[in-house]
């Protein structure tokens, strides 16, 4: 099990990740990876403190996995949330170099095989 903790910044809604120092980063690459339940619980407790301090909204843990040597969110929803809309590559973290690697691909008509 590998997890990271994510939340949205209260003031502007930007997606944040908890870093190694227990702070919050906009950059997915800075996210601390937790590999056991007590570590996740401790991270979420820090998240709750940040909520109480009106810095964050809704911190929660997400599963990540290694792909080509890089951690990336396991669920598509979280991969999109950590990257930006797959239909607008010019927007979101993917446009700012803050997204997981490898980048999500938007499916195109040409990239699909027929039945």
């Amino acid at each position, binding site marked *: 099990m590998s997890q990271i903790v994510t939340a*949205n910044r*209260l003031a502007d809604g930007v*997606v944040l990740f908890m870093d190694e120092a227990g702070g919050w980063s906009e950059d997915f690459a800075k996210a601390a990876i937790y590999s056991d339940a007590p570590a996740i619980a401790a991270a979420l407790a820090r998240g709750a403190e940040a909520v109480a301090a009106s810095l964050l909204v809704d911190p929660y843990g997400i599963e990540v996995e290694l792909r080509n040597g890089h951690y990336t969110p396991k669920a598509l929803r979280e991969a999109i949330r950590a990257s930006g*809309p797959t239909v*607008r590559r010019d*927007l979101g973290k993917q446009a700012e170099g803050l997204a997981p690697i490898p980048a999500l691909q938007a499916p195109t008509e040409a990239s699909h095989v027929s039945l």
Partner: protein
Amino acid sequence: MYRYDEFDAAFVWARVDQFREQVGRRLAGELTEDQFRPHRLMNGLYLQLHAYMLRIAVPYGTLNSRQLRKLAEIARKYDRGYGHFTTRQNLQFNWPALKDTPDILAELASVEMHAIQTSGNCIRNVTADHFAGVAADELADPRPYAEILRQWSSLHPEFSFLPRKFKIAVNGAPKDRAVIQAHDIGLQIVRNEAGEIGFTVYVGGGLGRTPLIGHKVREFLPVHDLLAYCEAILRVYNLEGRRDNKFKARVKILLHERGTPAVRELIEAEFAARGDAGLGLPPAEVARIQAYFAPPKLTSRPAVSDRLERRRGKDEKFSRFLESNVVAHKVPGYAIVTISLKPIGGVPGDASADQMDAVADLAEDYSQDELRVSHEQNLILPYVALDELSAVYDRLASVGLATPNAGLISDIIACPGLDYCALATARSIPIAQRLSERFGDGARARAIGPLKIKISGCINACGHHHVGHIGILGLERNGEETYQITLGGSGDETASIGGIIGPGFSTETVVEAVETVVATYMARRDRPDETFLDVYRRLGPAPFKEALYERNKGADI
């Protein structure tokens, strides 16, 4: 169009001040998220996947140029340079900051706009036919009644905490362009034997988790009783609706569980008990509101434009645009132009700030300063002189807005889906894009004829997939996106809920599956003008099912 009176203006500005104070308290830590959420939702502010999302009301889809320019300005100043027109005739910004929203609402208030009741368990923005007031087939303009309902329902103390959200739509022509039978209350303007205008009232339509077509509860409701009767419906719903289960809390479930006769009886009893207790609509008041929507004085013009016909004969692209995006106006010499926000391969309903400005300029120059948003996520210029269609077309083409596909297979409704929405289970926009690229806006799309594809990224059905001729519902199964296809849905006056044709399709195969459905239709139609819906209703699902599943059985797919 309607202009705010002093009361409206004071009320909207008061809400801006109130929300500014609420946001200030939230940012200062005086309100928790749980305390603040109902306040932000009552002002149309959601927290989505990437950021906040602000949903702005466009009452019954009517806007003027000044308002659209303001939306463009907000898109540039506070958002990412674009907006998304929705299936409820609203506009959504996908990236506003919470701290900026009071300023955004103030900007909106300066042009008589707001985001009130675009979310929450209240009566939502009232929608109407996007051709209201100009359609050749119209009995009466539905917008004055929608405006009366808006005024009545805004911050209505009794109906601000309903069991669930409540949507009302009004349509004024025999052709239902407002999907009224998929609304909590659908009002169809009709004329009785005495020649008086009134409403056929449908209750309990809705899509989402449990799609149901509205039930007719009144054949003819006099205009005088519009508010009293709607109030009776809301009171019955407010008292009897299922507050114990969010998924069963819409009024459609009440009708489904109790039966239409029983609920009708309750409504009529409530209506009778209230009598004429102050909610009867005085004709003078109706006339006062109608005056705001009085048709502009249009210059008299010949019914046929030589200039238009000359270009039609020699410019195929222009001719195609006229065929699909231009419809008859009630005034000879004029036309209604649909500006498709479905460029081939584009994001349905998205418009850049520059495009909004360009459309605002066009409305000002050629359409009496007025435009509309359709539930099909397009924009409408309602008053274009036939002589000026050529110039309008050229200007639309110059900003990439002349896609000749209104009503065709690539004019696809799609919700934002998993690319933006926190509730979504799958992406819908990429499917729309691929289908649009596959079928295009050329000869093939025209040969297929009128065909509505509607795509939702979760069971909440913001993409209206249940009433799509071909509906696509994106779901998540074992971590993968999967797409369920429904066929035979319709959102017009012959409303029906599409039937699930069989097991879902993967991201890779769903476009080919739609191709198979379309090919089956083309092969089985009796004549070129027999539409997809006609064929489906004639033949039922069997040939489509067979084509989709039987023929490929055992094949290496």
